[in-house]
């Protein structure tokens, strides 16, 4: 990093101190809501009463977490486990489908110039920008007619409307950065394009594919409104739906909501921090160029 200082090169001691004060204040504003949620999750129903600004719980209890993870349905089978499994299955299969279909297409879009290339790329980009809710109504009608409402397969198909274009763009962006020399050498040695892709490009791209897959997984894991609309059976719910239902119209259970939120978001928040530098690159690479 250069020692650029766009706002002025000579900064006094007091100037530096002012900056720290501003940064600490903003950071506090950023972290307080998170601290409150942790407090809410760890409080039991007795000690959590009335409004307070303090982020420190008065008594620590795992009662909420136990209640959230211990839900059972009428037959006595473990409901939370089932719903967590639903979330995992839907996210994993959405990711697998998106990546499998996108890999070769992204490579073709990156390496070959052909009629219809620009139009195709534009379609992928536009479909990524427009909101899922717009497609929700026709998709709902179709899923209803095919009896795929309330099923994992239906939700995977619905999520694929975003995961496929997203994966194509991310992977195309990565393939663009791989030098062509290796492939050209392979072609000169007589390898077919398919063989070049399989033996030269794919092994090189495994890290990029893994990152794209993880982002795709996170998006599906965090999706709320489509799941909320397409699922009505308790045993078919994914985790975001149960979190929303703790904050119902009439029955609001903030303690359970907080505990469930912590349990569901901790893995993806960790994943996000591990991957965030790649996300920024992927988002802006196409646009800035």
């Amino acid at each position, binding site marked *: 990093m250069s020692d650029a200082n766009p706002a002025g090169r000579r900064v006094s001691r007091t100037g530096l101190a002012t900056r720290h004060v501003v940064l600490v204040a903003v950071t506090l504003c950023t972290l307080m809501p998170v601290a409150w949620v942790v407090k809410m999750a760890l409080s039991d129903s007795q000690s959590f009463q009335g409004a307070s600004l303090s982020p420190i719980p008065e008594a620590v209890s795992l009662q909420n977490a136990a209640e959230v993870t211990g839900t059972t349905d009428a037959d006595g089978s473990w409901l939370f486990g089932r719903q967590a499994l639903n979330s995992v299955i839907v996210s994993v299969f959405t990711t697998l489908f998106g990546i499998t279909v996108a890999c070769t297409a992204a490579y073709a879009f990156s390496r070959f110039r052909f009629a219809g290339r620009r139009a195709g790329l534009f379609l992928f980009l536009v479909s990524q920008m427009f909101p899922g809710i717009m497609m929700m109504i026709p998709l709902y009608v179709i899923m209803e*007619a095919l009896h795929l409402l309330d099923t994992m397969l239906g939700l995977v198909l619905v999520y694929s*409307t975003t995961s496929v274009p997203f994966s194509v763009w991310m992977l195309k962006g990565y393939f663009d950065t791989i030098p062509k020399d290796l492939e050209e050498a392979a072609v000169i040695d007589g390898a077919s394009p398919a063989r070049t*892709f399989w033996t030269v490009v794919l092994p090189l791209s495994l890290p990029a594919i893994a990152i794209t897959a993880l982002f795709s997984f996170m998006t599906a894991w965090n999706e709320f409104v489509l799941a909320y609309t397409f699922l009505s059976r308790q045993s078919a719910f994914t985790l975001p739906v149960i979190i929303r239902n703790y904050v119902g119209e009439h029955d609001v259970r*903030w303690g359970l909501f907080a505990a469930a939120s912590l349990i569901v978001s901790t893995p993806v928040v960790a994943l996000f921090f591990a991957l*965030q530098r790649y996300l920024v690159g992927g988002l*802006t690479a196409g646009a800035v160029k």
Partner: protein
Amino acid sequence: MAGLAGSDRSVSPRPLDHALAFAVLLAAVLVPATFFARLETAREQSASEDWRALAVARHVLAGGNGEPALAATARAVGTGGVPGLSAIFLQTSGGTDDFGIAVPAQLLALTPDGRRADLSRDLDGRVKEAAGRARSSAAEGGDGASCIDGGPVAPLLCAVATRAGTVAGVLAARQDVGAPFHWAAAGGLLGAVLLFLAAWKRPARHPGLPAAGIALAVAAAGALGMLLEGQGRVDAAIATETTLAGLLGAATAPLPPHAPALAASFLLSTALAAALLAGAAQKPLAHVVSDFRGRPFLYAAIAPAMIGMILLIFVPFFMGVYLAFLDNDRSFVGLANFVEILAPSGTSDTNFYLTLGVTVLWTALNVVLHVSIGLGLALILSDARLRGKAIYRVLLIVPWAIPNYITALVWKWIFNTQYGPANALLALLGVAPVDWLGRSFVTNFAANLATNTWLGFPFMMVISLGALQSIPADLYEAAEMDGAGRFARFRHVTLPLLKPALVPAIVLGTIWTFNMFNVVYLVSGGAPDNQTNILITEAYRAFRVLKNYGLAAAYSLIIFFILAAYTMVTNRVTKAAESVYE
């Protein structure tokens, strides 16, 4: 180096390419159209089948309770020829329990030839579920009828209950509704083959014209087939009598022609679209086809993603457009849905212009706050002598990491009148508690805005930080030597060099905020009286609350056009902006 990197081939398309291009176009329009037509027919038919099954169940209920009486009824219904009937069942009431609620007695299920039906455990459970629903419907004063649609595999299950708690029901297979669909599909296939042969024989000078003609003819044949299917069914379906003969007569009657007529009109109108499309897009598409044909690897590489996109995005989009022209009974209403949105009358459920205004205000305020906070923090953080900037950076992007539906619900709690920290803070300052999410537009909007600002500034901060770090330091030194002050350096060095990164981020941020469903839906929920709703949440309300699919689809289409226009304008602007600095 055949085909690798940059070889731009322009081979003039051969007749085969025109034929293939036409086949693709025909499939792209007619497949969704016939699919939709099939859905419509199936929907209408299933309503008719439910009714038929319930009619039979009512007859079973009237036929008497004992096994001999039930067996007689089963044989009568069986010989009456109810299509697909596999069993009838009766569950008498076993009296009432201590609370006066009817307790079911044993279930008796018979096949149409009067023998005991052997129900699988799964089926037995479903029969009891249907019976339970029918019983509770009767107890609540409803019609006491309940149908469970098993879909394509499991049988249709309908039950009727009396107030006393006796339940009768029918198990029947769903009928095949393929006839109109097959008509259209066969017609389409024939047309495609004809055109294929025609184009193969003689390179057409205007391939679009015969293509369009054939598309029209094919669809007209399909539509006519559907209409013929539907004709002559009305009279049979109307007759309803209480005698067994009359009941069976009505019960076995085919469905009324409403759906085939609608499906036909849909097919005809999309065929028109196909014809126009074939005329306009065939030539460029033929070039694409011709280009791909020489490189089979390209076909194989792109086909899976393209087929996925067509099935998952193109087909639903087409259906969404068509739904926008239908009312809730799926009757064609022309532009009525758009008129209701864009020229609202006194009875309208939505106020488009208010919502549009709120959406624009919402988007503008958010983007301004995101950019100013994000850029401000980035400027502070980019100081080389600042310590601990890595820690600040990590902590400041926490809001971006948290799933946004969770953030929205957390902020709903923060603005809770009773428990929320927002009012606790006000109390600390000696201000009376505010009913944030109550009846005031301003407080609801402010709550949404605060939530989304917290959620969105880290993105702008990270983008600005990245761009700031790539500005070479010597530019500032040169500017300083030329006597530029702090503001002048920001204005003439920092800002222009930030622009290429910041402008696309702002465009993207604008679209995200414009579509920020989760925050508005989960924090204010549109309160008060849907005033804080933005376009996207209003469309969702039309869909889920008003349950007006046509209106919601029309709303979505309007949002689509607004976003498309915005994207086109900004594309032009950003390209112009980039060319200045290149």
